[in-house]
């Protein structure tokens, strides 16, 4: 039993060496043959990797927005008509009139240049009150948040993101420092914790916060309007009910007649997740189908070249059969060759996908997530392709008549 197992393993090892030698002998041909498999495998792995990166990226952004949060912003069906903005009264109404809402906070943002220590840095300025920090789960790790007085009077105080600290501040000398933001001089009172991406995308750590009122008055030139507001709700309540109440209330406040479209949009962070998952799912499915076709073509290429190889080596097969090779041993030899060929294709495809994914993830600014399962699965699939498309040529080789095969020129 053990003896026969050792014998069989020895046979497999020997045929594998043979297959490797045969592939080396026709290096270019082997490479071209496996191209279909290489492309198919590389396409699938790259797409899955990028899709996972995208999903993770969006999930991170969404979690950065806080969970159980609606984001409400003006949006007209007709893009040529500017929708009326929301103001403080809208936010107060939402907070006071709908049950299950924990807090609401409006925000405005604008691009500014920050100056400190003779250095300047382009960043984004966001107007935000304590409610906003709570709703978006932003933590101040150094210093403090704005106090009520600063918020209500619109004072020139600011809380900076770690990126801004890194760029224009000296570490440990941040709190209490004066900095200039645009034309406004302000005192730094806090630094926020590192966090993942913000509402508009981009680096959430590259930000300066000031009280909402300060930004409205001194940067936007409008005392009351907000660009969007976030609504954090109690997860114990039914999301769809709260959303419907929100829509009804806002339609009423904005005097939208029945039959008219909303001039605002409500985004549910959970919904973003779902959408992205659906989109990446669809994308992956499409690419997988394309890859499947590529693999099919590649497999037929393998079969074709193996048939050529069997014909070319008819005499060799004759010799092997004459000296006592069994049909299954000849079959194993050619099957092994096809499998090894496909495995090489799979391996090259995996390496190609690795390079492609890293480069594309870098270009698209997505995290690169290496998924061993997809890579192993692709490799195994390549080997299976070798078995499927190598079987017929190998079978044909094993059925050759030794006498005819030996006469073959």
């Amino acid at each position, binding site marked *: 039993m053990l003896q026969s197992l050792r014998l069989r393993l020895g046979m497999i090892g*020997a045929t594998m060496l043979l297959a490797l030698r045969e592939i080396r*002998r026709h290096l270019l041909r082997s490479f071209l043959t496996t191209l279909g498999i290489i492309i198919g495998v590389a396409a699938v792995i790259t797409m899955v990797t990028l899709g996972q990166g995208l999903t993770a990226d969006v999930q991170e952004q969404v979690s950065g927005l806080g969970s159980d949060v609606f984001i409400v912003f003006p949006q007209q069906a007709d893009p040529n008509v500017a929708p009326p903005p929301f103001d403080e009264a809208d936010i107060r109404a939402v907070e006071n009139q709908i049950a299950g809402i924990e807090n609401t906070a409006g925000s405005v943002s604008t691009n500014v240049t920050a100056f400190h220590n003779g250095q300047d840095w382009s960043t984004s300025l966001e107007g935000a009150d304590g409610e906003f920090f709570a709703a978006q789960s932003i933590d101040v790790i150094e210093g403090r948040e704005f106090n009520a007085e600063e918020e209500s009077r619109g004072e020139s105080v600011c809380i900076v993101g770690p990126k801004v600290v890194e760029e224009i501040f000296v570490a440990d000398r941040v709190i209490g420092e004066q900095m200039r933001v645009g034309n406004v001089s302000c005192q730094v009172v806090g630094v926020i914790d590192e966090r993942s991406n913000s509402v508009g995308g981009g680096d959430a750590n590259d930000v300066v916060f000031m009280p909402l009122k300060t930004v409205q008055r001194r940067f936007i030139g409008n005392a009351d309007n907000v660009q969007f507001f976030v609504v954090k709700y109690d997860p114990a309540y039914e999301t769809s009910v709260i959303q419907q109440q929100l829509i009804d209330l806002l339609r009423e406040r904005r005097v939208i007649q029945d039959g008219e479209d909303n001039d605002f949009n409500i985004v549910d962070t959970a919904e973003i997740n779902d959408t992205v998952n659906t989109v990446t799912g669809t994308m992956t499915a499409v690419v997988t189908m394309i890859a499947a076709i590529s693999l099919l073509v590649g497999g037929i290429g393998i079969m074709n070249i193996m048939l050529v190889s069997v014909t070319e080596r008819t005499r060799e097969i004759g010799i092997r059969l004459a000296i*006592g090779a069994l049909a299954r041993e000849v079959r194993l030899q050619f099957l092994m060759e096809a499998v090894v060929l496909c495995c090489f294709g799979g391996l090259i495809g995996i390496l190609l996908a690795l390079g492609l994914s890293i480069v594309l993830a870098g270009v698209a600014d997505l995290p690169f997530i290496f998924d061993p399962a997809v890579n192993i699965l692709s490799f195994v699939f390549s080997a299976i392709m070798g078995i499927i498309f190598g079987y017929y040529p190998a079978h044909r080789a094993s059925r050759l008549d030794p006498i005819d095969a030996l006469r073959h020129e």
Partner: protein
Amino acid sequence: MSEAPLIELEGITKTFGEGAAAFQALKGVNLTIERGDFVAVMGPSGSGKSTTMNILGCLDVPTSGRFRFRGVEVQDLSRDQRSLLRRRYLGFVFQGFNLLARTSALENVELPLLYRGESKRMRREAAERSLDLVGLLRWADHTPAELSGGQQQRVAIARALVTDPDVLLADEPTGNLDTERSVEIMELLTELNARGITVLMVTHEAEMAEFAKTIVHFRDGLVERIDRGSRSAHAMQESV
């Protein structure tokens, strides 16, 4: 072992094709070959000598009749069983040498042992021994393309010998060689026969058949005549 002859052919026929196109290559061949014999099979082309060799080599099966090899009824065996028989008991030498191209002499000789599942070391030792026997040990690393015809045929003989077979089947082993090389090959076969290997050889050259102990003449798919009486000893004396 039993006292039965090594090889017995009884009423062997072989028909190729079917219906009107059918061609009967063998029409009832009876032949007995004893262990240790050196048989030359002669005859004009189409006489059935190659077909007989293919059957004796267990490469082909007769249409009818019985072929007993070491007491085993070969016509009843499956394809794989015949392969195992070849692997264990037979060595082949072909007219066209039939070595694997781009493969060293040593690896060519090792090939049959591969199918026996021998260890790498054992394969190498046996192949070297076999190459040494045909006087080509120092050419072990050369590929067939780097060897002369005579050398290639000796590699082929080394390959046939490496499994220590009972029977060496040689189909026109000198067909592609000049006279001098042919004589060398025949002397080698004679020497191997002297070591106890039964040699069956097809040839159309009477000169080469002279080396055999028994000459079987074929004509029209039948054994026409069997000449016994060794001239090989005589031939060897001459060459010394």
